[in-house]
């Protein structure tokens, strides 16, 4: 068991299994197919991401360095939240990028009853330590417990 402390971007608490991407999450490439064609488990469609490709993202604690790719990224994340196909939480090892931040902010301001805690600045050690399937608990103050 190990604890990491990050910055709270979107508050909330959750416990969920980890899903880890060591490269950037391309939000459009990852979510588009799932959102368009009714995949309620949001299977990742990004062929360039060997860590996530073909894996289910709904309900997972998505651990990643940043999101990358098309500037539709934020609205795709917003749509995923509106359609309740979002990850349980987003845990960034680095400072959150502008697209993920937009998605997170848009969901908090414009959607009711959406919960997707977002923590950033967890550090490189976090991504080195966490592995797929480990249990992640996110606390209100930005503490992330990995066990």
């Amino acid at each position, binding site marked *: 068991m190990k604890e990491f402390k990050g910055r709270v971007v979107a508050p909330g608490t959750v416990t969920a299994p980890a899903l880890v991407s060591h490269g950037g999450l391309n939000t459009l490439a990852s979510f588009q197919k799932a959102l*368009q064609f009714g995949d309620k488990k949001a299977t990742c469609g990004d*062929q360039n991401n060997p860590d996530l490709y073909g894996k289910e993202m709904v309900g997972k604690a998505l651990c990643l360095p940043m999101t*990358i790719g098309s500037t*539709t990224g934020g609205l795709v994340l917003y749509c995923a939240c509106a359609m309740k196909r979002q990850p349980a939480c987003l845990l960034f090892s680095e400072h959150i990028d*502008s697209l993920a931040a937009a998605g997170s902010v848009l969901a908090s301001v414009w959607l009711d009853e959406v919960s997707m805690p977002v923590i950033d600045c967890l550090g490189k050690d976090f991504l080195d330590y966490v592995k797929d399937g480990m249990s992640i608990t996110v606390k209100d103050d930005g503490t992330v417990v990995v066990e």
Partner: protein
Amino acid sequence: MILTKEQQAILDGSEGEVKAKVMKTLVMYGDTFEADKLVPVTSKYNHLVTSFGLKMMTPVFELMQKLIDAGAISEQQFSVDPRPLDPKVPANFLQKFIFKNFMYSTQESYEQQLKQLGLMDENAFTCACYLDEVGNKPGKGDVLSWAESSAVVYANSVLGARCNRNSGIMDIMGSIAGYVPHFGLLTDEGRRASWIVKVNTTKKPEAQLLGSAIGMKVMEDVPFIEGLDAWLGEELTDEACAYLKDFGAATASNGAVGLYHIENLTPEAKEQGRALIKENAKVYVIDDAELERVQANYPVIWKNPDAAPKLCFVGCPHLSMKQLIDWTEKVEKGLEASGNKKVLIPTVFTTPPAVKAEFEKTEYAARLEKTGVILSSICPLMYMNNPLCAKMPVITCSNKLRTYTTSRYYTEEEILYKITEGGKKA
């Protein structure tokens, strides 16, 4: 973040609940990046990334309608990314049926929303809005609230405008409020380079391959690129701008680059030179072997990797007039060399509607048509993103299209050979 009295009043609801939410969105977004203030948007036009009435985007259309109903409309008009449909682009009966009745069933109603929100004109649908024929070309130092990764990186790098990599929806929020948060690529410090890229190739590197390599390496950082001026020259000619358009699109889609500097060529690199480079910048050397390695590592996700291509797209991002003319001549020469009359694979060149209209006034339009190439203003990416098209073996020289779809990437020379079987077999 320190707000002016006017900004604070809007946030407090002086202009209604919806406008207050718009302001709250921008403030929260800015706070995430420790922005110190909101600064005025100064460009004449905005550019939005969301051009498609894709059914999965229903939550976005609902949000847009809230803005319209509340009269929260921008004073800026805008261009928007390309339309997802064009009857001229090859599709079978089933594909056409699904496009119109399922995937893009909300296209017409969404375009009505865009008109209400301030669309520049009926033909303002392109990712390359900054081309002269389109007319949405910001000036150096202009502050933008744009989205569309390829347009943002071009505006920042080639035109010297200032814009963060805004997401869709956030683009229109900034335009409605008339302000964007001051952070990142809007600041002098945020525009300095933390990577030095040394281009040591023995020939002019393929724009979209070089951009891909750099994007995957530097991700969201700003690279300062040395050695490329040897191939592109020191002036922003039409040819250099077209190269940088394609190069930038690949850096932005294969990574998350929002700004690059090309030594001796792009405006800030010309003015400030190596003073743009941060201390302890990392170094990435690109030679022929590195580009070969990058291309060889692209996954091929066709069910049958040896399948014969059924469609070829050239023009993601949309082609400029110069590129259309060059491609017309190259295809003609390729066909002449092979003895073929028309392209051997159904091929679509994509370009902005305004460029298409100008191109059609030239002799090249008839010459291109004679080769069998279809000229369209469609978004190839949106065309490809469905299970029916995803199963098709489609080839492209766009690294952006490769990244987001099942299409297979080849260099321009390889594409030319495949569609004409003339010229040098790559």
